[in-house]
């Protein structure tokens, strides 16, 4: 369990990092919580590792009315502590264990694109985006990729080999909105067998204005569904319909049928909780006005 030889780069600024990535076929190292075990087990053998943790500009965590922008070097633990996004915070507590959250990064988890991971689902359900940068020969160029285009497949994102994910943007929740994240994992902190992240917004009349879910562990990428009109307000019915749309697979921990069943159970729980929280938020908003 020792990695094969590789060249290690530790750029000090973003341009230098992008230039290195443009010049070599390398892997980006941030928290290393997934990459280092893969190197040690020789499942990955990149010739170059580009460690971005010394790039100061990637350390930013910006909170605005529109949402939270998380820099590529921001750890799970810091985002959980300072992020101020209630759904992100809630999801981060489901990510592994404190020692892993102390090193692992939010953006790293997104780029890793594990279909059972929580953060891609959060980005997807919120309609967030990932900012990618590359060196065009003269300077850095950035593009923002929306979540639904970013998660391409299992362990596969839209980031090109010469691109660096510099930040991710998690849009703020609307008013009169509730959220929830329910999952079943074999052990506390494990990747979920299945999980459902839900966001429900009520209209001023108290009716459901929007209901979106993202499911983890039951498809090649987060399965996002708009359930705004589904089930005519019957969350159990909406959840059952959702569970028929997902495409889980068997593995050593659970059967596909069980995972499908979990989606129905967890979606109902998440939607009910999110709707309840949205109702409370609506009342508070009305009371405060």
């Amino acid at each position, binding site marked *: 369990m*020792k*990695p*094969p030889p590789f060249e290690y780069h530790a750029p000090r600024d973003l341009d230098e990092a992008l230039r290195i990535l443009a010049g070599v076929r390398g892997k980006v190292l941030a928290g290393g919580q997934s990459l280092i075990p893969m190197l040690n087990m020789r499942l990955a053998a990149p010739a170059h590792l580009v460690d971005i943790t010394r790039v100061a500009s990637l350390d930013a965590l910006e909170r605005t009315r529109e949402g939270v922008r998380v820099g590529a070097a921001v750890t799970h633990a810091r985002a959980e502590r300072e992020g101020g996004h209630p759904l992100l915070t809630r999801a981060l507590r489901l990510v592994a264990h404190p020692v892993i959250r102390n090193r692992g990064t939010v953006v790293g988890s997104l780029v890793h694109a594990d279909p059972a991971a929580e953060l891609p689902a959060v980005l997807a359900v919120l309609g967030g985006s990932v900012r990618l940068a590359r060196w065009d020969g003269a300077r850095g160029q950035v593009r923002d990729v929306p979540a639904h285009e970013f998660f391409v497949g299992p362990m596969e994102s839209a980031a090109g080999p010469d691109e660096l994910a510099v930040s991710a943007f998690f849009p703020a929740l609307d008013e009169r909105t509730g959220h929830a994240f329910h999952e079943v994992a074999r052990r*506390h902190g494990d990747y979920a067998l299945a999980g459902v992240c839900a966001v429900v917004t009520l209209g001023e009349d108290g009716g459901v204005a929007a209901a979106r879910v993202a499911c983890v562990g039951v498809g090649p990428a987060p399965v996002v569904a708009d359930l705004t009109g589904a089930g005519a307000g019957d969350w159990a019915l909406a959840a059952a319909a959702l569970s028929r749309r997902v495409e889980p697979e068997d593995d050593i921990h659970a059967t596909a049928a069980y995972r499908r069943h979990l989606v129905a159970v967890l979606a109902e729980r998440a939607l009910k909780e999110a709707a309840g929280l949205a109702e409370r938020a609506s009342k508070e908003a009305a009371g405060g006005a």
Partner: protein
Amino acid sequence: MSTRLFGEPVRRREDPRLLTGQGRYLDDLGRDALAAAFVRSPHASARIRDVDVAPALDVEGLVAVYTWEDLPERIGRPLPLLIPHPALTHGRTAHPLARDVVRHVGEPVVMVVASDRYAAEDACALIEVDYEPLTPVVGLERAVRGDALVHDDVPGNVGAHLVQEVPGADGRGAAEAIEAAPHTLAFRLHIERSASTPLEGRGVHARWDGRDLRVHSSTQTSTSVRMAVAAALGLPLPNVEVIAPDVGGGFGVKIVHPWPEEILVPWAAMTLGREVKWTEDRREHFIASAHERGQIQDVRVGFDDDGRVLGLDVTILHDHGAYTPYGIIVPIVTSTQLLGPYKIGAYRVEFSSVYTNTLQVTPYRGAGRPQGVFCMERTMDKIARHLGKDRAEVRAANLIGPDEFPYDQGMTFQDGRPLVYDSGDYPRMLRMLKELIGWDDHVGRPGLGIGLGCYVEGTGVGPYEGGHVQVTSDGRVHVSTGLTSQGQGHETAFAQIAASELGVPIERVSVVTGDTRRFGYAVGTFASRAAVMSGNAIALACRKVREKALRIAADALEADPADLEIVEGEVRVVGAPGPAVPLSTVAVLANPLRYAFDEETAKATQFSGAAPPDRPPVAEGDEPGLEGRDYYSPVRSTFAAGMHAAVVETDPDTAEIRVLRYAVVHDCGRLINPMIVEGQIHGGVAQGIGGALYERMVYDEHGQLVNASFMDFLMPYATEIPRVETAHLETPSPLNPLGIKGAGEAGVIPVSAVIASAVEDAEGFPIDRMPLSPSELYHLRLRHAGQEPGGD
């Protein structure tokens, strides 16, 4: 004997060192040593056509590459079969490096030695082995079909077959007794594989200085590794020393020896004239050490209206993997310990121990007992269910009574001695357990279940252990014993025994284990035997030292030794606060000197007037020094017992299983240190819950272990383990001077049975297969609701 320290919850003295990173484990040794790594078979069954090492020869830092052909004859021989048994008619062991054939994924094929582990692994990756894959034998059902063979010369893949039968009091055999019984049941049980998975894997470091070989190994038996290494290398025993440094857990896997690496690393060190070290990595541990548990059991039982068992017939299929270095200890233990605390009318047990192309199976904490207890306790629950009786009541109807000891179960135990229980009080234990968990007050409902399980554990198997105790002229007491420590707290427990026996403060006592330079005769740490065996040996050695100390002090004090006692490290007349002689002075007087080194030793020199000039300084038959050595060798094992109960909750929708309460009543005779015993129980229960709800070794049909990492092999975290409530019963063993029984394996033994019992109670349908995942429980629900086809 003073009981000041014996029986007290003394804090573990090793913990400050171990918990602050001051421990020295195998990989902390040999900074400058060359590193070994192994090319291991990626196939479960294959013939080796060719090994091409040429592509690796350019790796910078490469020192040597060895295949089986490169080994001298005595190194290349098959590894020893440690425990032969007449029923093991087809025992087979591996060669240190594969010779022509590989029989499981992970079998070592090529050994590489390089300047560091990185370079060694780089070279391993470049070596090309040409395999001709053969049909692998995976799973017990496939193995017994016998259409593919693990070893060409083992027909039907059966390594061992053993039948033991104990007729009932009326002389009838089990078949007849079951036939005649008012009620009968028949069923099949499955238990999956798991493994010891200690935090620290195995590892070996060897240094050769041209005459002497010093080997460090992360082992549970340094004395036995020493003999094995000396034999394999053809070295005289005095030229080989083996030391177990701090060892990060063993749980059984490290009692197997010699491992291929324990022979090959010292041999390479001698051949190359350099220090060589090999540290097992986690993947190697999963695929190249040992597993345990996997069994299928077919049970037939006959019983009366009260639930009393009249006849029991169990047929066990035991998967021992590709090799049998540790013999058939595991199925023997299952067969014999299955009986638990019960009087079974007539008993017949038959096992077939079969080869598969999977990792070898050797004892893991519990060593076959969890399977046996699962069988018996499932049987008790099924009887209760059949009769509509309380499960505890059915057990009570079958218990051995407190006045029936010694109780002879009529079988032969794993030590080759009769299975005779020495002491216990099982009915009282059951009453204590019911009270602790609130059995009679429990109000069940769907989704909330309670369960229980009982066991008896033969502990402290022979043949012997020894202890050496020396008091030096500074008044310190140095205790050594040959068996090893893997975190059990021996430094504390053995020091408590010595301090109590000698009447000295525990701070003055130091303990060394597992170092053949200090104590050469030992068996090892396994089978819950260390406290019983070395504890008693150390006590006996202390008694010799005490007798000598009193004799010498009696001279100095002009008193009768019978009137003396040792208190706080000083010898004085019983009850008289007058003159006292410190043990430091006694130690000086015990060793007549020519030369003085300090004020204390000056008292023992020739002009000090301490010794009468008309007698030899060391009397005939006496020895210099205040020290003693003794051994403890029991006639047979001592039998500890325990009963566990749990309350579990099952989620009606997700089928998640949560253990809400876990209660343990435990009897290991007299307690040396209740805190250490409780720690052992907590750890054991945690491993048991792992086996019940999380852990399995998943081999695919090709013999690939698909979950060979802690990502996918689900060892439970602290978050999965409930608080464990404990109560102790002490029925001293009449077999040994201290009255103690073993505790090391206790916690793990009945857990699968207990959780199955509780889940069955919560769900209302039988649980016959462990471990049980939420996914499996979900499908069981569907099956019992008639929504999914059933069958095994």
